[in-house]
């Protein structure tokens, strides 16, 4: 059972929504990632999506592209990412970590070692979920089987353009949670339409029984709250990365903490009163 399978039921019981920050591994600094992950958890993150840098991130907008390019210049590959997760796990054994990236670094990892090496090493490092942006369900069978063997969930994207047939196809295969893309576009888009998100979620929920998170284009805490009212989780990526970019480590950590704490506070405004004690714990300075 992956950590994701316990996180979402616990949140549901508490009447709270999952907050999922996305950071690119090795950004804004090669060694900052484990510390940054801890800061995000302390500020109220429930799951962490860790971006694996790739040279050709064609589903990402300028912010994540730039973060990815920076990380690549610092030599961040899958081995370094696994090492960062391992270091994070030394003092956090509860928070689920999901790797998000593209197919080629994973295929290359296995080709240079052996089939299944990626899944085995990800599991050993303490990874709970994997989202491969350019692996649609049709081609993800082998990876899904390898990940399942190690108790790792394969996470899928769904989009406003996904047809009912594809939603059903992905519903049959998805584990952990489904990541619903809020807009037609790339990550970091500025024109999120709540009504459209609501409509997409309704179509998804006709078939998908696992939690649904929404991301791409959430750029303020108010929007995060609105999204959380209709989704099970909100993903904060480009907005968070922009707040870190170009900052020295201490400042970047403080900025990440402030941003996630603020979003957490907004999300928990809709949590039931009996969880007040829980909320105040997160609101501590």
């Amino acid at each position, binding site marked *: 059972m992956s950590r994701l399978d316990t996180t979402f039921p616990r949140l549901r019981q508490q009447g709270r929504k999952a907050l999922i920050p996305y950071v690119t591994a090795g950004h804004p600094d090669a060694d900052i990632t484990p510390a940054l992950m801890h800061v995000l958890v302390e500020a109220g993150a429930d799951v962490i999506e860790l971006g694996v840098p790739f040279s*050709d991130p064609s589903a*990402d907008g300028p912010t994540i592209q730039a973060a990815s390019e920076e990380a690549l210049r610092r030599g961040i590959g899958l*081995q370094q990412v696994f090492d960062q997760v391992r270091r994070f796990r030394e003092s956090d054994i509860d928070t689920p970590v999901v790797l998000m990236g593209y197919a080629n670094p994973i295929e290359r990892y296995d080709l240079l070692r052996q089939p299944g090496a990626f899944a085995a090493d990800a599991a050993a490092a303490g990874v709970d979920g994997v989202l491969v942006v350019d692996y649609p369900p049709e081609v993800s069978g082998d990876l899904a089987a390898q990940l399942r063997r190690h108790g790792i969930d394969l996470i899928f*994207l769904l989009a406003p353009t*996904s047809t009912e047939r594809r939603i059903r196809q992905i519903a049959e295969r998805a584990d952990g949670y489904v990541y619903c893309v809020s807009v037609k576009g*790339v990550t970091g888009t500025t024109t999120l339409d709540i009504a459209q998100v609501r409509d997409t979620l309704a179509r998804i929920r006709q078939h998908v029984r696992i939690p649904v998170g929404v991301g791409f284009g959430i750029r303020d805490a108010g929007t995060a709250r609105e999204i959380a009212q209709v989704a099970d989780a909100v993903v904060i990526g480009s907005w968070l990365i922009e707040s870190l970019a170009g900052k020295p480590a201490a400042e970047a950590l403080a900025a990440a903490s402030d941003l996630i704490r603020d979003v957490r506070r907004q999300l928990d405004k809709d949590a039931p009163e009996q969880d007040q004690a829980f909320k105040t714990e997160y609101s501590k300075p």
Partner: protein
Amino acid sequence: MTRKPIYDQPDLDGFFGRFGGSFISETLAQAVEELHAAYRRYRDDPAFITEFEEELADYVGRPSPVYYARRLSEETGGARIFLKREDLNHTGAHKINNVIGQAMLARRMGKRRIIAETGAGQHGVATATICARYGLECVIYMGSVDIERQRPNVQRMALLGATVVPVTAGSRTLKDAMNDAIRDWVTNVDNTFYLIGSVAGMHPYPTMVRDFQTVIGRECLTQMPVLFKRLGMAKQHPDAVIACVGGGSNAIGIFHPYIEHEGVRLIGVEAAGLGLDTGRHAASIQRGSPGVLHGSRSLILQDDNGQVRETHSISAGLDYPGVGPEHAWLHEIGRAEYVGATDDEALSAFHRLSRVEGIIPALEASHAVAHALKLAASLPREQAILVNLSGRGDKDMETVMARRDSGGQP
């Protein structure tokens, strides 16, 4: 051999053996499916085919001739060299064949906005041309490095009414232009058609672009016997067909009809840049490994972390770290051979063809000519080599002159 081999690639999922397929984000799935449905519907539609043929005849000027390069052949000694003159097409290269086919499809799908990537600018010019002719909005993504070295084509695109968007991410060449075009498509999927210029990308592009380009090889199948007869050569087919390979659309266009003619050698010439062992080249087949880029699995140039490497070639049109999946497959099954020509060899062939035959070839096609010269010298006079002269060299004046001024060439 009694049985004629049947070549029926790709399979239903767009795989040529282990290469090809559709490795796309869910945000693109619907758009690709819609395109596929439209292509399936029209590819065998008689009205579509007739219109395509009329456009190729009246607007492009097809069939393009095959020219026997007598002086070049005699000077080289050995096999006779024939040139398939795709450089004589309207807009100056083979790219227009595919552009017309896809633009016709876009119109039938009701998409009024066309986007495309371009390296050398030939595909961008062809796309801008057809958009002008059909009254469609046109946006071309082009790496800022390529904009510098192919200025005349940038000016032509602007003149034709297209918007050229400089791409400054990554290596600022063709692969990055393709990334940005994909991002645009995802964002504007309702009204936008992505017109890919090579046999790369996700299924069905490698198959669709091939199908629109095979007119090159099909014409050769009927033209060559006539030429051979005139020259008193007792043969139907050339002994070797040679084409340059970047993404590989001109090569697949001339190779494909010859695949089932097993006696015909198919030779793809990759850009060897400064040399195949210098790390400064674009030889994805000879120096690449299996990987997933731009929506399909093929042979790509990458490092041990699976990051796509920067490439080098004097010709912008070959400066791409991947290759169409069908070429990776033809290489794997041994039906086609892939070799390299360096920057210097291509330049030397460029000058030689200009001086000896009065034909100024594109630097891309010069790679094919360079290998043809090498091969011809090693073969007897009875043999025939057919070269796809995929484009003309007007666009390359600046590059060639800069090299001459720096003492590279005569």
